[in-house]
């Protein structure tokens, strides 16, 4: 699965894009976030708080309860600041 990181979150994790073979049992964004925290200290810090975390599944905004089964592309980013 392709995972993208944007903005300050990308700076924290130090990577903008990666292909991840997800471990068994991750079915929604929330479980993916918990797994992200376990990867290393940078990921633990970047995914620590949900308050300023946003996600998209296949380029659509998604709540953390959303299923990731069958998703091709998941993105994590801070609240948007365009306009």
């Amino acid at each position, binding site marked *: 699965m392709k995972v*993208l990181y*944007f*903005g300050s979150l990308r700076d924290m994790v130090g990577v903008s894009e990666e292909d991840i073979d997800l471990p068994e049992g991750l079915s929604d964004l929330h479980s993916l976030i918990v797994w992200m925290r376990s990867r290393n200290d940078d990921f633990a810090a970047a995914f620590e708080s949900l308050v300023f975390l946003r996600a*998209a599944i296949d380029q659509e905004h998604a709540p953390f309860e959303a299923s990731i089964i069958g998703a091709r592309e998941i*993105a994590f*980013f801070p609240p948007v*600041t*365009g*306009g």
Partner: protein
Amino acid sequence: MIRVQTDNFDISSEIATLTAGRKDIGALVTFTGLVRDLNDGDRVSTLELEHYPGMTEKELTRIEAEAHARWALRASLIIHRVGRLEPGDNIVLVITASAHREDAFKAAEFLMDYLKTRAPFWKRESDGATEKWVDARDSDDLAAKRWDD
């Protein structure tokens, strides 16, 4: 119509293209967002705009369609710039055209509120020495919530 580009835009040219040959437009509203040299008290010398290619276009298209579903628009355009900008530079242009002014005004405000809270752009400011990511504003979330009915 929506566009994401590094180049600047010219409002008169965009209006001319959008409304060419039309005589059924009575009201046309444009909103332009620009880089200010002072943001929340911090001096700004450059602004870097990053986005999520692919999702940006989809989200802007969705937001524009939503505006057309809510108001009687006869034409609309959203242009958002990305890349490196300086104070005084244009960032975003929204144009809405309708028979009457209320639809054009409301749709333009709606587009900007939704764009500010849903379109995947992120701003990084520099004062010439240090860089920092711009924080999202609670006031933008509040502004977007007023359309939730």
